[in-house]
């Protein structure tokens, strides 16, 4: 069936049975005879056909067709569903990509194992890590048990130096060589970020004012009644972050 025939099927009303004058009827209209006569009499009247300006309507239809042809086909409201969903998902993916690229770098802790000779034991540790007490010349170093469980080794032992990002940052800012991080924390938490300024004298070797350990920092920040109930245990300064045995 061609397309024109299909449209003609849509145009024609249903004609399934009894026909009134005018060609319209339906078997479902089982009317009494008196009402059928009224129906037939009314159907004999024809609506006026001159009220609709056919020429003007055809002109407007052609003009509308030309206008829509220039603009493009009129999309149905549901035609924007898939393009809209695609655009939304593309925007979300782009936003996630930007967030992934612009995220701050993670601070990593690098552990360097550097063998230290006997002569460097007298110099203090430059990065503030508590090291083993320096061994005097001629005196064997602390005994350590090798992993294999054999005889303990003696002599200079490799030290573990830990590179701490916050200490490196403090050094770059011109802080003292042995700046205490708990001290810095205490100063920032009590006086704000504005108090975090490099000291005026770079050669000032006086110990910074403030707590020297995290325990002292905790005690300063908390009330005495609260801190008194906390279990007391010796915690080295850097082991909280390093986990170095």
């Amino acid at each position, binding site marked *: 069936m061609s397309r024109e025939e299909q449209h003609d099927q849509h*145009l024609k*009303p249903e004609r399934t049975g009894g026909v009134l004058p005018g060609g*319209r009827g339906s078997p479902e209209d089982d009317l009494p*005879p008196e009402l059928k006569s009224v129906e037939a*009499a009314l159907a004999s009247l024809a609506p*006026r056909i001159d009220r*609709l300006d056919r020429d003007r309507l055809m002109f407007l239809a052609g003009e509308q067709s030309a206008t829509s042809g220039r603009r493009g086909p009129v999309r149905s409201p549901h*035609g924007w569903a898939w393009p809209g969903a695609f655009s939304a998902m593309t925007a979300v993916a782009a936003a996630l990509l930007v967030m992934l690229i612009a995220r701050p770098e993670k601070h990593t802790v690098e552990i360097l194992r550097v063998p230290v000779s006997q002569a460097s034991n007298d110099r203090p540790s430059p990065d503030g890590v508590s090291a083993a007490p320096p061994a005097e010349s001629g005196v064997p170093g602390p005994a350590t048990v090798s992993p294999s469980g054999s005889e303990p080794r003696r002599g200079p032992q490799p030290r573990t130096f830990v590179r701490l990002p916050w200490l490196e940052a403090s050094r770059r800012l011109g802080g003292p060589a042995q700046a205490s991080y708990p001290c810095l924390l205490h100063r920032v938490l009590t006086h704000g970020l504005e108090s975090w300024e490099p000291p005026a004298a770079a050669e000032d070797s006086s110990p910074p004012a403030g707590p020297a350990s995290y325990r002292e920092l905790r005690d300063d920040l908390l009330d005495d009644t609260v801190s008194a109930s906390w279990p007391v245990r010796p915690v080295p300064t850097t082991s909280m972050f390093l986990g170095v045995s």
Partner: protein
Amino acid sequence: MRAFGPQQLRDLLDEHGAALVLYAQQWCDTPEDVVQDALLRFLRQPVPPRNTVGWLYRAVRNAAIDTSRSASRRARRESALAGRRPSWFAVSHGDHLDAAEAAAALKTLPPEQRETIVARIWGGLTLQQIADLTGSSTSTVRRRYLAGLSALRERLGVVCPEKNNTINT
């Protein structure tokens, strides 16, 4: 891509144009504009509706009701122009009924009955289509149709050829 060409539009006008105008005239005084707008809106559809006639009658009905509501402020002018309103039906000497009397009788009917009769007799819609159009049940539409025909029979004095039963008005 338009599916309706000029020839299909002419066929649509010939088949249903006058009936659509008569249907719209129940509510507003400018049924020609209402029908014209409905036809143009029909042509703008990206996909032609499956039931063309039902779609057109629904579009005309909604537009005519909206027009009548917006024209409520011009009631005085409408009453003044009542005498100059165009007639509903074409005058023909072979009619069983007088066109003017039939139009006047239709205007006295309740809106639901008048709408059902106009859509059924001149629109060619089935009771089911009228039910879908008005949002009613088929039984309700049939009841309105029978009541409307009975009222018109009383007003117009139509003679039943079988029983020869006439109710004088």
